[in-house]
């Protein structure tokens, strides 16, 4: 058994751990405009990122966007997932395809669609002005709201599919048993389906939260140049600033914060529902 796992394990090590280790090593180097970076073992990049109010704010925005998106995904994803899980198998395959359909479109293309919808001359503003609701176009694009909507549209399928897989594992007759004992649909949902779906809620939320923390294209395109989340900030340091050590430090901070919040969140939810 161990021998069977070995090649795959080595591959994972090579493809995942090795680049991470290299990145971590780079994050301890010193930036040099003329030599890219100087070999060093110093925490300066981390200290600078942690002390800088700008990056504190960027991290704050990233966390708030990721948490909002996760919460919204959960609220809109649960009913959809339940509906999907309880659908007969013939219609389900079609519904699953429709659910993952947004993922077939690249983030950039999808964002272009949102821009056409939310822009000053976009469909929504045109409609609102046409109806006389507003006289001046509303600033919809380049707002935190636009970013959240855009990211939710990308990650919601992950939440829905994860939840629906777990809900599918909850025997349907448990809901029937609850109804038979006098529970209305909402009570049956709260007392029976929801507690049993907690593993799905945790898994889906972790997945979605991680995706949101690392969102790149959507914040860049829908948030506009002023809006900053961590992934674009990392990109900026690597590509525009050519400051690899600092970019690597930012990337690691993002990783650590994401990991910490994920572990913390799962532990809290897990304890709340474990018997």
């Amino acid at each position, binding site marked *: 058994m161990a021998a069977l796992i070995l090649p795959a394990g080595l591959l994972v090590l090579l493809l995942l751990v090795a680049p991470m280790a290299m990145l971590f090593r780079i994050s301890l180097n010193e930036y040099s405009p003329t030599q890219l970076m100087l070999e060093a073992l110093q925490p300066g990049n981390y200290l600078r990122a942690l002390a800088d109010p700008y990056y504190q704010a960027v991290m704050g925005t990233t966390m708030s966007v990721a948490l909002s998106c996760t919460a919204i995904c959960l609220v809109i994803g649960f009913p959809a997932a339940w509906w999907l899980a309880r659908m007969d198998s013939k219609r389900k395959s079609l519904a699953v395809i429709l659910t993952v359909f947004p993922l077939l479109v690249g983030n950039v293309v999808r964002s272009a669609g949102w821009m056409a919808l939310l822009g000053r001359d976009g469909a929504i503003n045109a409609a609102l002005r046409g109806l006389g609701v507003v006289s001046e176009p509303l600033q919809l694009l380049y707002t935190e709201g636009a970013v959240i909507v855009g990211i939710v549209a990308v990650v919601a399928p992950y939440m829905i599919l994860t939840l629906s897989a777990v809900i599918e594992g909850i025997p349907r007759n448990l809901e029937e048993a609850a109804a038979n004992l006098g529970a209305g649909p909402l009570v049956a949902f709260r007392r029976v389906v929801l507690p049993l779906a907690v593993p799905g809620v945790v898994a889906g939320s972790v997945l979605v939260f991680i995706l949101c923390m690392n969102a790149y294209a959507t914040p860049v395109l829908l948030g506009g*140049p002023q809006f900053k989340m961590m992934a674009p900030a990392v990109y900026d340091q690597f590509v525009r600033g050519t400051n690899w050590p600092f970019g690597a430090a930012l990337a690691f901070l993002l990783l650590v914060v994401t990991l910490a919040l994920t572990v913390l969140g799962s532990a809290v939810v897990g304890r709340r529902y474990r018997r």
Partner: protein
Amino acid sequence: MISRRALGLAAAALPLAARAQDARVVMGTWGGDYGEILRQGVDVAVATPRGLEVVQEIAPAPTRKTKLLAERQARRGTMDVVGLSDVDMYELAQLGLFEPVPAGAVPGLARVIPSLKRAYAVPHIYSARVILYNPSLVPVPPRSYADLWDAKYRGKVGLSDLLYAQYVETAAIVGGGGPSDFEPAWAKLREWKALGARVYSSNEQLAAALKSEEVAVTVMWLARGFMWKQAGIPLEHVVPEEGATSITYEMAVPRNARNKAGGWRYLDAMLDVRGQAAFAQRMGYVPTVTDAVLPAELARQISLTEAERAKLRTPDYAYQARMAPRVLDFWNKEFKG
């Protein structure tokens, strides 16, 4: 493991394969119009008849730049020729990424405008940074960069996030500094921000804002302005009184290119007047060779007058590279923040 020696023997035993390898040149380039004109005007028209087989590796400039950096310690890189802006090219040349141009390897260099020649690269096309404005919204054209700080342009100036370093230099010039002194830029940029200068994520979004008349004025490459005019955006250009700053797109052969000889042959093909004229006609960039003849009307639209050319500034690459982290920081944290 097969030793390199064994590989060399195998290569020697396959002269045909080896020759095919010599002909193949991997060209790291932008896609879109640039890549297409390059393909038609240089690859098909000149390089292929000269026996080169050109493969384009298309990616945005930052991606190719990062790739070159990531490959800098590899014995063999992926690109044989790479095109970048003069500023990027200088930055990477500083890190020793490019092969110095050997004397005689690119005969066409004899026809190149002398001030554009570099030790580490061959100039491809160039343009100048100018002011673009919408004549129906701006009846009295601005004459200088400094005019753009006038309160009458409040909220009407649009900027592209990609050109942030250019705006820092622009502000430095307005504040009394210049390409080698950005210190006065910071105060001027804060002032500009207070005047409601708007930043757009990409050149395309800036173009859309100009077209929808959300903004009326910008600072941009003359060549880009030419393309936007061709696309029907109502724009005129002004060469600022302070003097325009040039931008040159250059091509170089990475130090770890597989096929350096092919790379130099490609660079010579790139200097052919046919390709140079095609870029002028379609993208509004001025040829870097002296023998390319453009139609008079086109020349008027895309190039500077004798007097304007006399005031043309070249960026101080070394200074700009040194300032790059501060420029990006200021732009991100203060100007956009």
